[in-house]
């Protein structure tokens, strides 16, 4: 090698190597795959898993010391429930900024993650010893995953004399679902369930609209699941216009269905709550059980799908006739039992216009008992919070924020804030007259225990329930036998 050129040559090569290594270490968005498969897509599809490209939506630097306003840093983690959409960020940051500007004891720092990754991200932060203080808005299911990490707020509520009289006591009770009935959240947003009905289909079938008051009769008879079945069959129509009560009804060519429990997460526990509130976990917190509402409810749904045909199958739900997968919006489902959050999604995306008007009715009863399953969002504190008192103060600000309620389209637990929410939604549906007394009434019939309440090894137990939920909508099953199998499966999962 010529010595006069070797010096610069060496430095150039070393510089190139350093540049390449720095570029390689700068971060990768793709997961490594086995061997050389990374470079060749296969007929079976891409090799890497389809990870969402969004991780942190708006990561803010986590302040280690006092915040910019001199206060103790309290971290607010958003993404487990709603709140991660780009259009929701501005309101969330404004609430935090306004709070920070109004006082100097606490600095509320916001971090937002996409819902698809938020639970994982929080698990990693907890595992790494770097957890946030406040999580929310988060629903019951989100909290189940972090049940052991969430703080009991009872003492903080008592010591700060926080006023809970503005909310229904049942909702306060609802949130005492932590370990040992710990209060793991303050009532913030509720999403009661009730019946949405398609007025056009009822008019075509010449049926009166369902009742809007609990206890009201329908066609002279109680408004219960038997009535749902009866009118459901009349509202189920085949391609030739025969309804399901007609001898010529063709079950292989149904174009309109009478009823479904929509977007119940394929969970038979959620669907069967119409038949009464229950838990598949016994009082000891360890034993699997199959209570009567589940036995009766699931059989009713199964018969509704395979014998009476007024409830759609899984394949039908995914077909163009029912969305796909937005049955009530399709206009081919006469009655949908679901929550108030569904008001987000009744109208089709612009520029399409809605093809029918709709109304709301109370949930049908079973054995003279009305049960309307509830979804609810709250804000919780983590046990690992280093500043629980300050975090609780910030939490109460979030819970009482009307701006956040409007941001999330949430039905306020606070009765004094409900009217403003009604007016907001009414503007979205100028052609519909929503009887708000229905969802308000349903808040008095919430399911306690909640259909999303804790089960040991929650994610796996839920997967087992969903497997049954998918199964019975795919083919006709022996429900009693399947429930026995489910009990054994659940027990095995609980025992893990």
């Amino acid at each position, binding site marked *: 090698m010529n010595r006069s050129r070797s010096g610069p040559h060496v430095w150039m*090569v070393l510089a190139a190597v350093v540049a390449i290594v720095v570029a390689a270490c700068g971060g990768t968005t793709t997961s490594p795959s086995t061997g050389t498969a990374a470079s060749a897509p296969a007929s079976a599809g891409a090799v890497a898993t389809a990870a969402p490209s969004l991780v942190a939506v708006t990561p803010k630097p986590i302040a280690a010391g006092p915040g910019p306003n001199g206060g103790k840093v309290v971290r607010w983690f958003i993404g487990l429930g709603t709140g991660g959409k780009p259009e929701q960020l501005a309101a969330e940051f404004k609430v935090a900024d306004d709070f920070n500007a109004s006082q100097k004891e606490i600095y509320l720092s916001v971090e937002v993650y996409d819902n698809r990754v938020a639970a994982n991200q929080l698990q990693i932060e907890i595992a790494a010893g770097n957890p946030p203080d406040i999580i929310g808005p988060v629903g019951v299911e989100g909290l189940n995953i972090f049940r052991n990490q969430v703080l009991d707020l009872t003492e903080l509520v008592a010591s700060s004399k926080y006023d809970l009289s503005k909310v229904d006591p049942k909702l306060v009770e609802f949130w005492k679902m932590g370990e040992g009935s710990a209060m793991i959240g303050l009532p913030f947003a509720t999403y009661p369930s009730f019946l949405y009905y398609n007025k056009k289909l009822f008019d075509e079938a010449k049926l009166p609209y369902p009742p809007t008051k609990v206890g009201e009769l329908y066609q002279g008879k109680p408004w219960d699941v038997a009535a749902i079945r009866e009118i459901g069959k009349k509202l189920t129509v085949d391609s030739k216009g025969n309804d399901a009560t007609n001898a010529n009804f063709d079950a292989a060519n149904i174009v309109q269905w009478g009823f479904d429990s929509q977007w119940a997460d394929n969970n038979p526990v959620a669907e069967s709550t119409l038949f009464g509130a229950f838990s598949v976990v016994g009082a000891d917190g360890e034993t699997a059980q199959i209570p009567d509402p589940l036995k009766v409810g699931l059989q009713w749904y199964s018969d509704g799908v395979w014998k009476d045909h007024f409830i759609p199958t899984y394949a039908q739900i995914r077909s163009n006739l029912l969305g796909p997968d937005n049955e009530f919006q399709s206009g081919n489902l006469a009655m949908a039992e679901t929550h108030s959050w569904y008001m987000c999604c009744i109208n089709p995306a612009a520029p399409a216009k809605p093809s029918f008007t709709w109304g709301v009715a109370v949930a049908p009863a079973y054995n003279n008992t009305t049960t309307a399953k509830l979804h609810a969002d709250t804000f919780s504190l983590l046990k690992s919070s280093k500043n629980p008192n300050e975090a609780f103060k910030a939490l109460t600000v979030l819970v009482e924020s009307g701006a956040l309620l409007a941001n999330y389209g949430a039905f306020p637990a606070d009765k004094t804030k409900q009217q403003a929410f009604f007016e907001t939604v009414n503007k979205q549906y100028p052609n519909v007259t929503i009887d708000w007394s229905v969802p308000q009434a349903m808040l008095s019939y919430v399911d306690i225990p909640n259909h999303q309440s804790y089960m040991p090894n929650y994610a796996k137990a839920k997967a087992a329930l969903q497997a049954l939920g998918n199964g019975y909508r*795919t083919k006709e099953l022996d429900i009693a036998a399947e429930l026995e199998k489910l009990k054994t499966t659940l027990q095995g999962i609980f025992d893990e």
Partner: protein
Amino acid sequence: MTESTKALPATPSRPGPSRFVLRPSVREAIWGYVFVGPWLIGLLLFTAGPMIASFLMSLTDFDLLHADSVRFVGLDNYIQMANDPLVATSVIATFKFALITVPLTMLASLGFALLLNNRHLVGKGALRALVYMPIMIPLVAGTLVWSGFLNSQTGWLNDIIGAFGVEGPDWFNSEVWIYPALSLIGLWAIGNFMLINIAGLQAVPTELYEAARIDGAGAWTSLRRITIPLMSPILLYNLVICLIATFQYFTQVYTLTNGHGDPNNATLFINLELFREAFVFSKMGYGSAIAWLLFAIVLALTLLLFAFARKRVYYAGGDQ
């Protein structure tokens, strides 16, 4: 000679700092390592490192939600895996799927390559581009489109089948028809394999075909005796890649079944099962053990293929 050697004056030793001089072969080797260094570092940091971490994790009961109480459990995860019916189900489901989709993919990609390499074909470039294009469509979007196309109630395919008086199957809800359905979806994206096959076809010397034609060989004989043997290295490469990718199949079933593996665990492939255990149920230790099972299966199959290739694959350049 000895005298002339002795007569040579001894080389005077030069004053100054002593130098450690490497042999040229060693210097060359070092430069080789320098140039391959970035890749090696990447391999260590992003592949070998995580693999070692994953193996160590598989010997613990690491759970993201209870990270502070990690315990070393030895081979417990592997023992649990051996007794877990869901893991057995996932392995069987993956093999069942592979038995259908791998041969179908190989045959279809070779078939398309032969068709699109035909000298009589007009518009080869455009047609090849059309066959290749589906690869550019994002996988999730494509899967959702296919879910509509194959829907048993309103899907176009069943409408077409129905026009012949035959009732179309319930593609996504039948434990039998789900595999052909997924294979159909996979066939949409064989463009890459097809291109590689075309490159292989074009490397076959045309004199061989001429000689075969003179000897009276027909198209089928030419295919069997000339094309396939000479393309065998390419076919082996495609087969290995296809096999590996099939065993790593995930995105389509996750999209179609929301991660449940429906119907009735028929699509609960190994990769999906490992994802559920590790990221849905938070059992990272157990998920890591399943990942190593997947690795072992794929490695074993690949080694089998290479062993098979020794006798069946023709390398024009020889075996060296």
